[in-house]
């Protein structure tokens, strides 16, 4: 058993090291090579614009369901006017970044790993190198920039939609008093909660792009490898997002304490 734990620990550290190396190469590339803005904008469209449906559905329905459940639970205590503030705090601090991260990992992370993996096994990455183009400059940097811009915006959008859906479910549908609902919302939701959502979204985007790019770049074994890369990218980035979310919750609470603004 100890052997298995040791082996898995070394395997995890090795993997983390490889991803960290790609991160380092990407940061260096951003400073020493010209940034391909046209490719970055294409990726913003791919990541941001084409993720609209998943983000809208995730944000709106999670906010709506969360508000409804809170209403059913809190109605017995006469605290239903707090539904909006509790939903907003939960969505901003935890649910919107984590759920958006998981959805984007599934949609965009898989696509990045599959596209780069296909290029790897069909020698297109070797062709890039033979033409004097560093694969990190051409493939990873534009996707990283696009993810750094898109993910906070997507998380912000999910938060906004959850606020709207929670309001619609609570006030017009379930009959919560609007002034009390809004007063609680303004009282308990602070600017720090918005910052936390955006910071988490940014960092989850970084996790997705580096895990997915790494999985693509290390693809071998032809079609079987290309089939495996997106699955690995989604599983690993999802687990990393959930684990990072836990750590970030504590870290961000040090710098942006809950209840302050």
């Amino acid at each position: 058993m100890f052997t298995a734990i040791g082996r898995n620990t070394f395997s995890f550290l090795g993997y983390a090291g490889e991803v960290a190396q790609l991160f380092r190469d990407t940061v260096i590339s951003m400073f020493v090579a010209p940034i391909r803005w046209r490719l970055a904008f294409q990726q913003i469209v791919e990541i941001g614009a084409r993720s609209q449906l998943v983000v809208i559905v995730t944000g709106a329905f999670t906010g709506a369901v969360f508000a409804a459940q809170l209403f059913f639970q809190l109605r017995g205590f006469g605290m239903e006017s707090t539904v909006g503030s509790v939903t907003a705090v939960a969505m901003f601090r935890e649910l919107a970044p984590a759920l958006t991260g998981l959805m984007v990992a599934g949609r965009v992370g898989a696509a990045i790993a599959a596209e780069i993996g296909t290029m790897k096994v069909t020698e297109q990455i070797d062709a890039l190198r033979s033409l004097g183009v560093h694969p990190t400059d051409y493939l990873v940097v534009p996707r990283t920039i696009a993810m750094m811009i898109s993910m906070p915006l997507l998380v912000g959008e999910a938060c906004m939609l959850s606020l709207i859906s929670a309001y619609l479910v609570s006030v017009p549908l379930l009959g919560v008093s609007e002034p009390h609902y809004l007063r609680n919302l303004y009282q308990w939701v602070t600017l720090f909660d918005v910052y936390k959502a955006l910071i988490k979204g940014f960092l989850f985007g970084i996790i997705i792009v580096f895990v997915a790019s790494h999985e693509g770049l290390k693809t071998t074994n032809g079609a079987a490898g290309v089939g495996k890369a997106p699955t690995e990218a989604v599983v690993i980035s999802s687990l990393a997002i959930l684990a990072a979310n836990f750590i970030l919750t504590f870290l961000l609470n040090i710098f942006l304490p809950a209840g302050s603004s």
Partner: protein
Amino acid sequence: MIETRDLSKSFGPVQVLRSVSFSLHDGETLVVMGRSGCGKSVVLKHLIGLMKPDSGDVLVDGESIVGLPERKLTDVRRKIGMLFQSAALFDSMSVGENLAFPLREQGVHDEKEINTRIAEALEMVDLPGEEEKMPADLSGGMRKRVGLARTIIGRPRVILYDEPTTGLDPVTSDSINHLIRRLQRRLRVTSIVVTHDMKTAFHCADRVTFLHEGRAHFTGPIAEFRDSTDPVLADFIQGRSGDTD
């Protein structure tokens, strides 16, 4: 021009290259031959820095490229063009965009010049007017031709061909062989052709290096290779496996 010195490379427990040495002179065509899996493509990838040897050296114009970091290899790679076995066209780009790519990377931004050079390159590989097609719409032979057009458009001094006729029918293979020879004459480039196709070797080679058991078993003029009485070479040339029914 290009020289390998005692090149050795292993993949896990399998040693593919054992101290392979040969040199390539300006303007000549060297054909690297050997049985499948003997390391021919591995040699080629070392010459352009796509692989690093375990030991040994690769010299381009007298300078070692083995220790160079990826970004420092750009200048070397601009001198050397490579046609990949699968052609390795960028499948998200049209034929024209594939050909424009190396030019833009070299800093050519004049669209008129880019279009002229694309048309010239496609003319050279007998595919005029195919700029708008996507790689998925091309046959195997056409893909190789477009790959070759992308290789020559940057005007390299050396062209590396990795199995240029593999997977093609005999007639298309013959036309690719003629195309290689024609480009050598027209562009006066130095070439290395990796193949196990005897027709390609006899059609294109000035000299042959034959790899066997990871070593350069023979290096010499094509006529000497063809007339060799060495049993390893004779069996390969005649296509004899030694197996019986």
